[in-house]
């Protein structure tokens, strides 16, 4: 495995444009020249209203789509290059779809996790080792491989699905709406798995979410995508200090920040920059006393 230096770009998207049904009366432009960069070690959040092109953008990051216009570079290699190897890109950039538990198809959990490594042509003992490591990463003992997929809960199925992606040993994880339809504890478990996976230097996460709370809590940097264009980018602090732009485009502040903004609007001298429950508690205690 090549080790990516912390902070060097792992994904560079430049001027990426995409239309569905191009050249027909039903042509719909999904992306209009998007620029995006992901560096080793980063968690990048992408937010945007429904139909803003978030999923289309994600599908380019592991070559499920090739650029119609513009360029996508993954670990320095342009996906426009006819020699770009989709298998290699998809191994290094693991994509976890919305509701990934719906795409489990094997009878036993272990076979589903083993599907990718087997297709990469690893020996049975290497496949076994990868399945063991991947199951452990999502918090299951190796023996979980013998469980029937049909007998698992949604949260367990989702962990098996992500183990299947982790078994490919990716360097970048791309997550499309990872927390939708998980109960609050399954969601916390899921984010802990991602944080633990990311501890290896150079690994990066790209996450699309409609939950402003999750994005505020987890992202180092955020891109706001609207109608196929990036309208805002920066740290959580920078992006969420533009509530006017966000609400104009179908987004909102995380709930704790919304509370703080409303208190400010009521004339209380509360400081900005609180995006999580803990930060909001601190900011309110400062004005009403602990």
């Amino acid at each position, binding site marked *: 495995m090549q080790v990516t230096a912390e902070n060097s770009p792992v994904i560079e998207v430049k001027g990426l444009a995409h239309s569905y049904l191009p050249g027909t009366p039903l042509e719909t432009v999904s992306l209009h020249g998007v620029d995006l960069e992901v560096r080793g070690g980063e968690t990048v959040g992408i937010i945007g209203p429904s139909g803003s092109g978030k999923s289309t953008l994600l599908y380019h990051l592991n070559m499920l789509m090739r650029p119609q216009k513009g360029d996508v570079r993954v670990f320095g290699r342009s996906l426009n290059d006819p020699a770009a190897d989709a298998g290699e890109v998809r191994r290094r950039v693991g994509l976890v779809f919305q509701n990934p538990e719906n795409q489990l198809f094997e009878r036993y959990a272990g076979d589903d996790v083993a599907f990718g490594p087997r297709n990469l042509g690893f020996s049975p003992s290497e496949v076994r080792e990868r399945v063991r490591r991947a199951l452990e990463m999502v918090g299951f003992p190796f023996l979980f491989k013998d469980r029937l997929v049909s007998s698992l809960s*949604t949260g367990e199925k989702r962990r098996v699905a992500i183990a299947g992606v982790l078994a490919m040993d990716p360097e970048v994880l791309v997550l499309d709406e990872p927390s939708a339809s998980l109960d*609050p*504890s399954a969601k916390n478990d899921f984010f802990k798995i991602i944080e633990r996976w990311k501890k290896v230097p150079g690994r990066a996460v790209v996450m699309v979410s409609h939950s402003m709370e999750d994005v505020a809590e987890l992202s180092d940097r955020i891109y706001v995508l609207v109608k196929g264009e990036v309208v805002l980018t920066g740290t959580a602090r920078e992006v969420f200090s533009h509530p006017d732009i966000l609400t104009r485009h*179908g987004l909102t502040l995380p*709930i*704790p920040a919304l509370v703080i903004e409303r208190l400010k609007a009521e004339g209380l001298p509360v400081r900005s920059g609180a995006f999580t*429950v803990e930060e*909001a508690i601190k900011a309110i*205690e400062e004005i009403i006393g602990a």
Partner: protein
Amino acid sequence: MELLRIEDLYYSYEHQGAGDVSERSFALRGIDLTISPGQYVAVVGANGSGKSTLLRHLNALLVPTAGDVWISGYNTKDSSALREIRSRVGMVFQNPDTQLITTLVEDEVSFGPENLGLPEDEIGRRVDWAMAAAGVTELKSRPPHLLSAGQKQLVAVASVLAMRPGCLVLDEATSMLDPVSRKSVLDTVRRLHSEGMTVVLATHSMEEAACAQRIVVLSGGKVAIDGDPHTVFSRERMLRELRLDLPCTVRIARGIHRRLFLEPSRLSSVETLVRAVLAAKGERSVAGDG
């Protein structure tokens, strides 16, 4: 008379177990529930607690393994009453792809009323109203399968509304929507409720549940808590044991509750929390002035 009456409802799924022996596992284990016309009920519970299975009994998509479900006096086991039951209870699912069948949004929304054999002008009126209520009027000439997940869900809501059901059942229908689309669906639901519609909504969002008059918490196929939002949110420890969480504003309120004059469990919206903080601040400056 009650609209929905559920008596000692059991439901088991059959699935293939080890060695091809068929196994039955119970998703619902003795549910008793009565819902009056015009109520707004949220159903919450961890993944696998039986929410979707319960909701599917409300318009006879599933019939009880044991026990009874009555809709306006019709027993869902009586197959000759299906038409009566389904014209009263409209269902919106989590994944709109399972619900969309036509090639144009407008046809999708008119499909139901056309099948009821209504006059053309009545169909037109219903379709226009339903599309406006769900905010999809501008998508009317687009093919549903090329819309984003959020837009598709709004089309599914519109197509159910066009049937003018007395009871709207939503199974995690907002989990794929962006914040503003989610709000517009919830505002639509609230408006329909204020006009007399009965609403039953399953969700993982405690903020969404907090908008209901009554919250039913399921665990392991049984009703664990049934009460108004304040009653439910005052049982924090039990909620955590059931893999659930408190709404964001209640968690903030718990952090500062010593300074507030209201129990945190009553502060389940941004507005109520802001009012409580303002009251606490006012009290403190009055005391300070004195």
